[in-house]
Each structure stands twice: as C-alpha cells, then as structure tokens.
C-alpha cells in the first residue's frame, strides 16, 4: 500500500520583490512531512525558514511571491486553492505558531474568546449551543496543555510567557489540525519552561497523530524531539534525513559544521567551533553551490553548477553537495 505523505513540498521557490532587488529567500526546496512525525527545520538566521513556513499557509508579506512549486497537503495542492478556500483551510488543516508568538493574542480580548472564535468560525454554523460547546472545548484544551481551565477568561497580559505559549498551543490545537507549523516556539522562553513546552508539543504530536514542522536555529532542540531533520542554507535545503542519520552521518559540509557548533548534541566534550563568515546576501546569491564561499571543501565545479539534491545513504536521506560525506580537514 502506498501511503501519501501528509505534506509534500515540491520544488518550492519564494522570492521577495523589493524596489531594486529580488531576494531569493527560498529556492527549489522539496521535502515531505509524515503523519505523526516531527520535521525539524534548522539553519542560520535569514536562511529562509520562516519564508518556507509562510509559503505553506500562503501568508507571505506583500513583497513575497511564490514563483514555482507545489505544496500538497493530503495530495491537494494548496497553491491551486482560491483565496477563500485557503482561508477555510487555515487552522482547520494547518495551524501555525508564529515566531514572535508572545504577541499573538489580541491584548483587548480575553484568551478564551480568541480560541472560541476560531472554533465557531471553523464549525460553520453559529448558534448559542455551539458557542457553549466551544467554551467547553476551550476548557478541555486548557486542561490538555496544562493550564487551569478556570483561567479561560483571563486576558493575555495576565499570563506569564510560558503560560501564554501553552495557550497559543491550545489555540493551535483548537480545530484538530493535521499539520502544525511552529516557528521558533521556544526561543523567547527560559530553559526550564522551554523543556516543558517541548515535551508538551511532543506529547500532543503523538496523541493526536499530528504532523509538525518545527523551526529553530537551535540544533540541540531538534536532536531532542524531531524524527526528521532538514538543514537550510541561504534559501536552499541542503540536506534532509532522519535525525539519527543527520546527527551521526551528516554528509553536507554545512551540516557537519553546524553540528560542531553545537557540541552538546552528541554528548561529547569538544571545542565549540563557531561558523566562520556570514551568510550571503540573498538578493545576490553566489553562483553554483551557495555555500562555496564558506566551504572548506569547495572545488571549481561548486562555483559553476548548482549541485543536485539527491539520495545519499538511503532513500530518505538527501544531500545537495558534490563532495557529500567527505571529511573536513
């Protein structure tokens, strides 16, 4: 039996059109997300992680345009949907936790209200009983994410950062979505709260068979919780594979260097090797492999031709590099 993946992103390119330049924020990116699996998307700041995520729910800022690609959710192309159909899909099928989630709640409405409004909207019909039902659901959701159900009528500012994050997750789960996109959901939190929120996400993902795209630039977080990992560099996906493959058998030079920069991941005591240099300007990316100006293994070919994204050690491990797997001296 052939199982269709929950989400299949094929050859996605998203560019920002500015007054005098065109920022190639995402170029020919392909990956899949399975039901009940968590895909971690990592890479330096500005490499296009958020742009990929926003492309999926089609909420790009006005300058951003999707140039090519398919985004298949349950085999239906989201890019072919009309605006109105897309609006209906949002939150019902795909929910999203934004990068600066702390301000995701409207300060002048209470938290419960903001969750019920989406339940009612997605439920379709409006009636008093539905409203009551929605409030009941919110209480249950609060319980699920570990918040006191008595506080559903609190205002956002009455919650602490961690509680707010739980409430946001409750809101994201409100309509039982198939896919949850979480853009750096824990960056603003302290380590202990971060851990708790991660555990919560993990539990929800298992209990509800949820597909999750987890965006972060902290590889150690990914190592702890994701089954699959994608590494992005300068608008390109350079390597995907299962977490174990990537962390123990990472083939792309950038992946290796990134892992070295997070020595705690493998539990070894090594020197921290910060990445040298800065990522390129995406309005004017380097030719060929975009990593070549910083790559210790770069050869002439790297500057001329873009390396294909192809299978490496297994059918689910893909790398875009001419010298994949070679040792960096």
């Amino acid at each position, binding site marked *: 039996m052939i199982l269709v993946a929950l989400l299949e992103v094929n050859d996605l390119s998203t560019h920002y059109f500015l007054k005098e330049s065109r920022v190639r924020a995402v170029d020919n990116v392909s990956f899949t997300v399975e039901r009940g699996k968590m895909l971690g998307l990592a890479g330096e700041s500005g490499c296009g992680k958020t742009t990929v995520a926003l492309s999926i729910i089609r*909420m790009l800022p006005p300058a951003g345009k999707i140039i090519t690609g398919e985004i298949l959710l349950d085999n239906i192309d989201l890019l072919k949907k009309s605006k109105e159909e897309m609006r209906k899909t949002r*939150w019902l099928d795909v929910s999203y936790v934004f990068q600066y989630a702390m301000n995701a709640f*409207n*300060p*002048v409405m209470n938290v419960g209200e903001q969750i019920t*409004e989406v339940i009612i909207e997605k439920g379709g019909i409006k009636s008093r009983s539905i409203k009551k039902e929605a409030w009941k659901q919110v209480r249950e959701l609060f319980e699920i994410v570990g918040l006191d159900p008595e506080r559903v009528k609190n*205002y956002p500012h009455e919650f602490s950062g961690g509680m707010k994050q739980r409430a946001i997750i409750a809101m994201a789960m409100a309509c039982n979505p198939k896919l949850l996109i979480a853009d750096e959901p824990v960056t603003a939190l302290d380590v202990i709260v971060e851990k708790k929120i991660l555990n919560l996400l993990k539990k929800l993902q298992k209990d509800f068979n949820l597909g999750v795209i987890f965006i972060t630039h902290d590889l150690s977080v990914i190592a702890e919780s994701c089954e699959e990992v994608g590494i992005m560099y300068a608008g390109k996906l350079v390597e995907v594979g299962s977490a174990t493959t990537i962390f123990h058998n990472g083939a792309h030079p950038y992946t290796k260097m990134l892992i070295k920069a997070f020595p705690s991941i493998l539990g070894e005591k090594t020197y921290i090797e910060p990445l040298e240099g800065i990522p390129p300007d995406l309005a004017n990316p380097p030719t060929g492999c975009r990593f070549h100006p910083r790559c210790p293994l770069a050869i002439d070919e790297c500057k001329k031709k873009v390396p294909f994204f192809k299978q490496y050690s297994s059918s689910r491990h893909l790398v875009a590099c001419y010298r994949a797997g070679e040792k960096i001296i």
Partner: protein
Amino acid sequence: MGFRRYIIRRAIDSIILLMITVIFNFILFRVMPGDPTTAILGRSGSPVYNPGEYRTRLIERFGLNKAILPFIDKDFQITPDLNTLIDNQFVVYIQKLLVGDLGISFNYFPQEVSYLIFGHRLLNTILLMGLSIVLSFLIAILLGTLASSKFKSKTDMTLIFTTLTSYSTPVFWIGMLIVFFCYGQLGILPYGGSPRIEEYSDLSSWGLDYLYHMIGPLVTLTISFVGAWFLIARDQMLGVFTEDYITTARAKGLKERRVMFVHARKNAMLPMISVLALAMTYLVSGATMTETVFNWNGLGLLTYESVYRQDYPVLQGLLLLVAAVAIISNFIADLIYGLLDPRIRY
C-alpha cells in the same frame, strides 16, 4: 479590583489638577501690574459708563482691598498679619466660585459673567462644534482606514497631500474663501450670524434658518479638523495592521471582516479616544477664528470680544470653564480606556 483603584487614582489626579488650575487662574489675573481695579479701569477706551460705581462694586464683591493670599498683602508684599490667613482674596474667590459666581463683565456691565457664558452662546458653540467634531471624526476614521488599507497607493498619497494641505491652511482663511464664493459671488449662503430663537415665530423656521447659517462655519471647521485628524487615524490603523495578533487572526482563517472590525478596530480606536477627548475642549472653547469670520455668536466670539475689550472677568471665567472641561474629559477618556483596554487596569 484593579480597575477601581486605577479610576480612583485618576480621579484624585484630576481633582488635584483642577485645584491647581483654579489657583493658577486666580494668580494669572492678579499678576498684572498694579491694583486689578485700576488695571482694568485705567485702560483707555473703557466702555464702562460709570467707572466709579463699577470699581466700588468690584472691590466690595471680590474683597480687592484685602490681602491676596495668606501672608501676602494686596501689593504682593509679605506680611506677618495673622488675619490674612482666612481673610484674603483667594478665600473670597473660592467662596464665590463655589456658588457659581464668576463676577461681573466689564464690557457688558452690569451683566454677570456666568450669565454671559452659560446662555445662548454656550448653546451655539456646543451645537456648531459638536456637529463638526462628530462629522470630522467619522470622515477622518473612514479616510484613515481607506488610506492605510491601500498603503502607499495613489489613493493614499492623494489623501495625504490633500489633508496636509488643509492642515496647513489657516482655518479663518477657509472661512473667508467660503464667504467670498458662497456669499459674495454666488449668493447661496448667508453672510454670517447665528439666528436667535426669540426672533422667530415657530421652532421649525428657526431651526431651518439656524442650520442654513451653520453650513459655512460647519464646512470650514470640518475641513480643518479632518486635516488635523486624518494622519493620526491613518497612523493608528497602520500600526495595528502590522501587529502580530492581526497576523495571527488572519492565519486563523477568520473572515477579513472580523479581522478588521473586531481585532483591528478595537485597538485602533483606543488612541482615537484621546483625540476625541482633546476635541471635547473645543466644545466649550469654541472656534474663535471661525466664529469671528462668520459672526457666529458663540463662546469663541465672546473670547475674541473679551480680549479686544480687555474684559478680564469674562476671560477668567472662560479659561476656567475650558480647563475644567479639559480635565473632566481627560478623566472620562481614561475611564473609557480602562474599560476597553484590560492592560491598563493595574
């Protein structure tokens, strides 16, 4: 709860401010060089027919021969006299104020200041200003929303340029243009004035004529107010549209109508409330310039007259009224703020 404490604190603030205003108002009209009575009556062109009588009445009524404040005599010298503790002008002033006595006008002698202010003039001003404030407020919000939803488009730019122009145009000159074109050239509007109900046989004919006379000043004021408020409204809407919770609301797949009117508007309205509170002061200050151009007999015109004739008692009364309304409307705005925005209720 928190809200109650917040309101009580703001109420106390307002009361303190009110008291300071009263004191300031008292002192302001007494720092003029010399004895207030001579300062008033000594000026040339005094329209008071009987200065002697006026003077006696003034001194008697306001105790102008008493010390000004405790330990400060009427020539602003420090005195050790213990009697001045209670027996001074300030105490008399407060006593009079508490019973609503603002003194006697000097231009309209022997009419009472309170009679001059709280009569048909106040009504004229409130009607004119109220109408133009409501009208301008609606137009400004409408245009502001339109412009911000089409940020940097041709519509946006045109609206900005037009309103900046009206912001830069002196309001009285707009009035002069209207008089010139609509009265002088076309003859479709009256020259000016504000019809008094006593001069009409029935209410409806007065009402119609009143509104007819109001068109000129109303249009003038509306043009000028919209010029002042449009950019504020636009800026507020723009600010709200970039907020994260609006993005979230959109990502939730809510209908655009709900995003605009429930999520965005509630927040954009907050700062506009303070603008409206500011406008409340105009309700009683009147529009001096517009009322003067159109001879609209309101408090603005009264202000002009009083300055022209140096009618200090009336000016003092007007100033006090305006300050009081300012403080009270500010307090009410804070109250509404507290009701709408839960973050404030600490």
